[in-house]
């Protein structure tokens, strides 16, 4: 069981309490990356944060990760304010951040090494984690010897081994081909269904959000414009995604994200 693999804790409640993130541009113009965002996510929920590029999705995740302090307001995990990065909130990034100078196993064991765990104990956890993501045979490989999809599996395994309660995923599969992405969706859902970690998954791909999440947060121009449940049955295969409910949900998302205003939004972003 995956639950045996993870080192500590289970899932965690996540709260955003009136979070503002404001940056001053060199020109003196103020950019509202996040504008008074508030929500509460109960432990174990799979949340997809959907929106166009540059509208604040990643900033939301970075605030949760503790990599970006909010200008005002607070992010809270189990009612404790986030004041900096910690292993309880691990992140899988869009870009490849698997450490290329470490073998696959060492990557998976990084979090365990960082907290000073003994080698024998680390080995047990990394063995089981690698087995779960299907990389047992690649434990001693260099990341450069793996495909993009396999490197994402390494990133997932690292977060699993770290024992994080909240998984923050910033468009993690965005650079992968369709088939690899689908395989990773299945793997992620399998892990989530067993561990029931709280997952925040940023994506601009509506189909991906509908396959994975049971709650959607739509972000536009730094504001949380819609927070909706995804009540589609699981597993969400092609038939479910083609159902009238899914189509209606997709249309609602497109309407809310202001797709028809896309050219105007692009111009304002470029400014």
């Amino acid at each position, binding site marked *: 069981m995956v639950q045996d693999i993870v080192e500590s804790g289970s899932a965690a409640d996540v709260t955003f309490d009136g979070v503002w993130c404001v940056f001053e541009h060199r020109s003196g113009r103020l950019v509202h990356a996040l504008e008074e965002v508030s929500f509460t996510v109960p432990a174990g929920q799979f949340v997809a944060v959907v929106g166009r590029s540059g509208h604040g999705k990643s900033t939301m995740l970075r605030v949760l990760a503790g990599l970006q302090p909010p200008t005002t307001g607070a992010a809270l995990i189990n009612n404790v304010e986030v004041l900096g*990065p910690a292993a309880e909130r691990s992140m899988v990034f869009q*870009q*490849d951040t698997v*450490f*290329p*100078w470490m073998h696959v196993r060492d990557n998976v064991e990084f979090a365990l090494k960082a907290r000073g765990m003994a080698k024998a104990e680390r080995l047990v956890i990394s063995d089981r984690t690698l087995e779960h993501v299907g990389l047992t045979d690649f434990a001693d490989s260099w990341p*450069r010897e793996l495909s993009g999809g396999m490197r994402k599996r390494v990133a997932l395994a690292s977060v699993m081994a770290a024992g994080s309660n909240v998984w923050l995923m910033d468009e993690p599969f965005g650079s992968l081909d369709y088939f690899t992405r689908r395989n990773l969706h299945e793997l992620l859902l399998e892990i989530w269904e067993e561990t029931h970690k709280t997952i925040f998954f940023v994506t601009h791909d509506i189909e991906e959000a509908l396959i994975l999440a049971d709650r959607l947060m739509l972000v536009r121009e730094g504001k949380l414009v819609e927070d909706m449940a995804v009540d589609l049955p699981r597993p969400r295969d092609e038939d479910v995604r083609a159902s009238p409910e899914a189509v209606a949900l997709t249309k609602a998302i497109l309407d809310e994200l202001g797709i028809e205003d896309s050219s105007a939004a692009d111009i304002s972003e470029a400014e």
Partner: protein
Amino acid sequence: MTTEIVHRQAPPEAIAAAKRARRRAVIGRLVLSIIGVILAVIAWQLLADQQGFALPSPIDASRDIRENFFSSTYLEQKGLSDGGGYTVHLWATTQNVLIGVALGSALGISIGLLSLRLPLLSEIVNPLAAAFGAAPIFVAAPFFLIWFGIQPSAQILMVGFYTALLMYIFSRRAGENLDAGYIESALTLGGKPGSIFRYIYLPGTVPEIAGGFRIALAGAWGLEAIAELLGSQEGAGFLIKFFATAFVVNGMISLVVLLGLIAIFFDRLVVFGVSRLTRWTESGRQLAL
């Protein structure tokens, strides 16, 4: 319905062809290196054949090396050795270079990487590095001689100073160039400053630092020789200066060639070491071939 793909082992001729292709690539590189050396020797011979050009031929140089390498009557007569030949002076040069580069690298890399963690240190060192980096090291050479005399320590310090400066700049740049994504990923996996420094900064900066180290080592041979030319009682540079004043051109060219060969030998050693340390990079893999 998905068609199941069954993989078969490649036929023996395909495996043999793949092995041949790799062997050919390695041999090809070796052959090109040998051709390069042969062309250099031919060019040297052609230059030596020119009338009025005070350059001994490769054959003259090899004869001179053979006669004076381990023991040299000429050097003994001139009081420049106690029975040993060029080896005594080449060893002195090699020793100074290796000690200077080792000390300078340790200092430069330590300060360079530490300054990434301690902003105050970088505030202090950066202007100094910029000032000394802008002034050619040869300008500083006479000061080292005045301060430390014509002792090996003066040359070691000069090589060490130059190496430390270069390695500081390379280490800092390597740290700054390290993708911030790795640091952020490590932070969210629970990395603390100590573990991030040990497991991320140190290994992640090796390729760029190693590149700087090769440059520093290559430059150190020339710098040491020049320091010896300016004022020393032993070493290849000292001997070259002596030969120049006595117009012993065979000896001069022999020492230049020998010093070059020693520099190449140590560069190859460094390349071997770097290839072991950077196997995780594509270039490290190629170096290791």
